[in-house]
């Protein structure tokens, strides 16, 4: 029986690869946009503008304090109620982008604030504009602190993307759910699902470790 299910599973591989592609598409798009938005929010959060700073802070707390599944449902089921109708795919990307932006915002703000204040003062005293201070003096130094946890966060977000299967996006997790109804071997089916996530995440975990080591070396050299 087991070998019959196994060969069935092998035949379903193309279906799984399609799901894998969907997972890569949803998390890839969200990570790119989330990184851009997260950096902008993080820079504002570390700035001196009190109103914008606390607005973003409140939003980040709200998102971090609620389950991602609920956020996905709100975007997909509740926004149509006020006239914003979205397909499952864009709804998933929006929800995951926002989640990514919130986590990345905190990492970026933390990295910027960890740069000693004397650096900004020296840059300011030499006549560099606020943008130039950020671009040439603050961010290059903050990146050392930001990069390792940023890539680590990517790993978490790729895994979080499995939640969007709940609104019908056919990602790897969804493919697992659909397949297990035909092939009632949960361990086998979801074992494969797990392996596919691991295939995406493992290189990222390695990258994060390498960055961590390299940044520590640089930090001690400085």
């Amino acid at each position, binding site marked *: 029986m087991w070998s019959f299910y196994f060969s069935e599973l092998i035949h379903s591989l193309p279906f799984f690869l399609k799901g894998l592609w969907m997972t890569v598409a949803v998390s890839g798009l969200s990570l790119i946009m989330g990184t851009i938005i997260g950096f902008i929010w993080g820079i504002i959060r570390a700035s001196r503008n009190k109103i914008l700073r606390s607005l973003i802070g409140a939003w980040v707390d709200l998102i971090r304090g609620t389950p991602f599944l609920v956020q996905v449902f709100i975007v997909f089921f509740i926004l149509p109620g006020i006239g914003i109708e979205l397909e499952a795919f864009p709804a998933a990307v929006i929800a995951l982008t926002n989640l990514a932006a919130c986590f990345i915002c905190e990492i970026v703000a933390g990295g910027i604030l960890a740069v000693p204040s*004397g650096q900004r003062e020296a840059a300011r005293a*030499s006549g560099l504009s606020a943008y130039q201070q950020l671009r040439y003096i603050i961010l290059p130094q903050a990146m050392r602190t930001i990069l390792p946890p940023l890539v680590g966060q990517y790993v978490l977000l790729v895994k979080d993307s499995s939640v969007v299967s709940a609104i019908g996006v056919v990602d790897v997790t969804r493919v697992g759910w659909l397949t297990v109804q035909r092939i009632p071997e949960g361990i086998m089916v979801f074992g494969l699902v797990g392996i596919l996530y691991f295939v995406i995440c493992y290189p990222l975990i390695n990258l994060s470790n390498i960055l961590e080591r390299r940044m520590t070396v640089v930090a001690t050299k400085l």
Partner: protein
Amino acid sequence: MISFKNVNKWFGDLHVLNNINLEVEKGEVVVVCGPSGSGKSTLIRCINRLEPIQEGELIVDDMKVHDKKTNMTQIRAEIGFIFQSFNLYPHMTALGNVTIAPIKVRKVKKEEAEKLGQQTLERVGLGGKAGAYPAQLSGGQQQRVAIARGLCMRPKIMLFDEPTSALDPEMINEVLDVMVDLAKEGMTMIVVTHEMGFAREVAKRVVFMDEGQIIEIAPPEKFFTKPKSDRAKLFLSKILTH
């Protein structure tokens, strides 16, 4: 060149600058001293508005620093500021440190800025260290790179905030020598320091501050031998007994 008129500043309840009046002429070297917390660092930090003032007039090179509408970028480019803790950019070489502001603020071409940067590093005795990162330099060398960084903007004024206080004793002189040279070349300088030898050699006047006020202004010889105020006498007795 620099003119304080009835300048006041508070940090919360603390009156850090209390009715300051001070004129510094072009080419003049002024040493500011006083007990810690007397407001001397704040005084020079106001000149390029690292700290804003709340009352009074502060005019630097004919520009109104007290006016919130004044664009500070231009004034800051004319003023070199040397920090106690050097504040070199750790991710850039010595040459990168001294050329970034000329390139980005003055819009000097990169090759030209690097030529100027190399010359300026040679002037402070560090021509061979252009490619070194701050962490590879001693404290005295770092502070000299910081001075070169200021000089590369061809400033009209140089401000020094306790430039030798964070240095090991054997490195103090190499920094003071550079500052003496600068003073002799006619740079307008305000130096917050307790280095009395330096004050005697190049300062035209010593400004003594205590509790946010200027207590006494006198030529160095007079100030160190016959201070008028009791507070200055007390201060000098404390720093000169060693």
